[in-house]
């Protein structure tokens, strides 16, 4: 059995749209509050763990040491970990193993995100998650990947958008009682969410948590230190993390296998055999409303496709049988990415000590689970925490302070003394590599090439030289048909920097006939957006021979196989926009 590790303190900045404070200053606010909450000084801390999501948000390619001073890392063992959006929960796992290994008795874990510096929109940094050769030429918008997953989830289980939208309502209402929240709204209704601007159908403006700035810190301690520091430690009972394939178009987007794998690891360590009976409060990752439901199913707290119904019945409300995101989550408190993940750990700490004030869930919760999600939408990070049945406080409210951090108005942001504008002037030349190089040669000749693995029996699109499951070379090349099925699609109305499109784009994951799973990302054209359906048969429309250069754009788009569904092409073109600093 692993040595016991507890959370003994927590603190956070206010989450704001555009912080006056630097990332260092936000980190300091959170770290100082966390230490103060358990009456520790920095000298008492043996090691510091830090996380922050993509470097390109800050344009600082060394965010670990950049944030070191604010995190209290001066002259201490210190390391930044990073698993994209899963980072915030992962840093608590990093803290856990730093203490459980015996390397440290007391560690501080800090998660910071300042997304507001990135212009014209932080999506520019996020776009790097799309494959350089096969996806970025299509001009993707980050929202595509979520819209495609949400649509697949809805389609697989016949879900109603209304049932999903109520998650946004619940979380924004919950956050109305969180002192650090950016997006709390006590009177929001499902109609508000369903009536908000459509960004990339089915994703509407209020289905998604916006960019935010903020920081969170927790203090973790060994069993001896924890008992010395507090009479109400909250124990880390289990940790788990897991990564699914990097070929996101090969995954079944209807279900987060990686979350289930991570949850099983954490539950196993925690000795939780029946999570639905043994977990009393959950903080699943909710940057989108559907993600809370998706993740609750991956966490094995509801059957597949059944979380929306449970949410509609009030089961996940703060006073329901299984309160989910009583903090208000990312949808309500805000979404400074890494910080938002660690906020969930802090919330469980406060809930399991009975310190959550107006947010406190009823009864005497003994165990909770927090989870985050990230990288290429493929990592699950899970932490199970429990109070061992200790007494709950009732008087305290945490975060027990008026959280610091000041939001700048647009005018203040544009006119701030000493402000500096910089462009990360980096250019790349990407090598397609052997497999994709051959695929590009094939596209130029109007052929779609795949590789096969006889060990697992898969025909692999996109093609690769080795099978990532069997970890052996693939067995040869095969040409696949130019026809296939729309697995999932979105109707996208905005560019990557959130400017409206004149005509919507229809990105889709297309599974080519004769391939075993998933497929690849492309655009659908010659069809009215309202006529597109999951399961629709489509065929590739090629550029003429003289115009094909060996690019994913040699396929202009896919169109319905059924001639009756076709209409005149309006627009499918990729929309890479030049970057300008906003005036």
């Amino acid at each position, binding site marked *: 059995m692993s040595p016991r590790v507890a959370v003994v303190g927590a603190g956070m900045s206010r989450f704001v749209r555009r912080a006056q404070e630097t990332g260092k200053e936000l980190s300091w606010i959170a770290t100082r509050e966390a230490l103060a909450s358990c009456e520790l000084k920095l000298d008492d801390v043996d090691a510091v763990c830090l996380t922050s999501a993509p470097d390109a948000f800050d344009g600082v390619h060394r965010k670990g040491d950049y944030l070191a001073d604010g995190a209290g890392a001066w002259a201490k063992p210190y390391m930044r970990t990073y698993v994209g959006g899963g980072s915030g929960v992962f840093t608590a796992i990093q803290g856990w193993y730093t203490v459980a290994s015996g390397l440290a008795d007391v560690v501080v874990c800090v998660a910071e995100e300042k997304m507001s510096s*990135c212009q014209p929109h932080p999506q520019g940094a996020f776009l790097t998650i799309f494959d350089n050769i096969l996806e970025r030429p299509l001009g993707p918008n980050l929202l595509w990947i979520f819209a495609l997953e949400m649509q697949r989830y809805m389609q697989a289980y016949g879900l109603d958008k209304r049932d999903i939208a109520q998650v946004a309502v619940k979380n924004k209402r919950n956050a109305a009682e969180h002192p650090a929240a950016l997006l709390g709204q006590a009177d929001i209704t499902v109609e508000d969410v369903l009536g908000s601007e459509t960004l990339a159908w089915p994703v509407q403006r209020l289905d998604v948590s916006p960019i935010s700035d903020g920081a969170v810190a927790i203090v973790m301690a060994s069993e001896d230190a924890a008992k010395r520091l507090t009479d109400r430690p909250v124990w880390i009972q289990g940790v788990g993390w897991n990564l699914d394939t990097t070929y996101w178009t090969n995954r079944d987007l209807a279900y987060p296998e990686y979350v289930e794998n991570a949850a099983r690891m954490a539950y196993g360590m925690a000795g939780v055999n029946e999570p639905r009976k043994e977990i009393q409060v959950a903080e699943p990752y909710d940057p989108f409303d559907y993600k809370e439901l998706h993740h609750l199913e991956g966490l094995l707290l509801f059957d597949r496709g059944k979380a929306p119904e449970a949410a509609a019945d009030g089961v996940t409300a703060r006073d329901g049988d299984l309160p989910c995101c009583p903090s208000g989550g990312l949808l309500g408190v805000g979404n400074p990415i890494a910080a938002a993940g660690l906020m969930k750990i802090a919330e469980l700490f406060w809930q399991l000590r009975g310190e959550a004030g107006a947010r406190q869930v009823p009864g005497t919760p003994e165990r909770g689970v927090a989870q985050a999600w990230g990288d290429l939408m493929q990592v699950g990070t899970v932490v199970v925490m429990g109070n061992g049945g200790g007494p709950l406080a009732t008087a305290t409210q945490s975060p027990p302070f008026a959280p610091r951090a000041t939001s700048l108005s647009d005018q203040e942001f544009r006119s701030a003394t000493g402000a500096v504008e910089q462009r990360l002037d980096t250019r790349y030349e990407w090598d397609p590599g052997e497999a994709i190089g051959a695929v590009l040669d094939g596209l130029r000749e109007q052929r779609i090439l795949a590789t096969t693995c006889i060990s697992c029996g898969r025909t692999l699109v996109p093609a690769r030289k080795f099978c990532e499951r069997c970890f052996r070379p693939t067995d040869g090349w095969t040409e696949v048909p130019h026809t296939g099925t729309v697995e999932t699609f979105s109707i996208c109305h905005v560019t990557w920097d959130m400017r409206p499109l004149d005509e919507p784009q229809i990105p889709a994951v297309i599974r080519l006939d004769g391939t075993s799973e998933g497929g690849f990302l492309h655009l659908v054209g010659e069809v009215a957006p309202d006529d597109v359906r999951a399961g629709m048969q489509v065929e590739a429309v090629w550029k003429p021979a003289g115009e094909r250069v060996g690019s994913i754009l040699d396929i202009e788009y896919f169109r319905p196989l059924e001639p009756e569904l076709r209409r005149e092409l309006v627009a499918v073109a990729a929309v890479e926009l030049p970057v300008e600093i906003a005036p």
Partner: protein
Amino acid sequence: MSPTKIPGELSVSFRYTPGVGNTAFFEGLRDRAVFLGSRCEDCGVTSVPARIFCERCLAELEPSLECGPEGELVSWTLVRVDVDDQPLERPVTYGLVRLDGADTVLLHRLLHTGGEPAIGERVRAVFTSPREGSMLDVEGFAPVADGAGP
């Protein structure tokens, strides 16, 4: 053959506002032509530019202690090439200056005209006018022996 190199870029730029500590520092430069630092009495360390917290003990600090404008040259370098390794038309001298009253050093240009800088020598900030609230409100540091001054 299909292309062997696919061009790409990271489509982002940044607007950095200076935060609480550096805002006080830049306002000091702009409005009063002074360098503001922060002192942590517990740690006995004065940092320039000003900060709102001590990185050694995390105590809250006031970004209000005036340092300089004279100081000691701690190190210097003569730069002859640009970031792309191309020769500069005019080489530039950069120095690390510990302002009087400060424990930390500041990176800036040196304005020496005759002869090499000397480690340990006294230098003094030369301010521009008008000033906008920027590191470039300081033109650089000149030797005190040159008589540079207000």
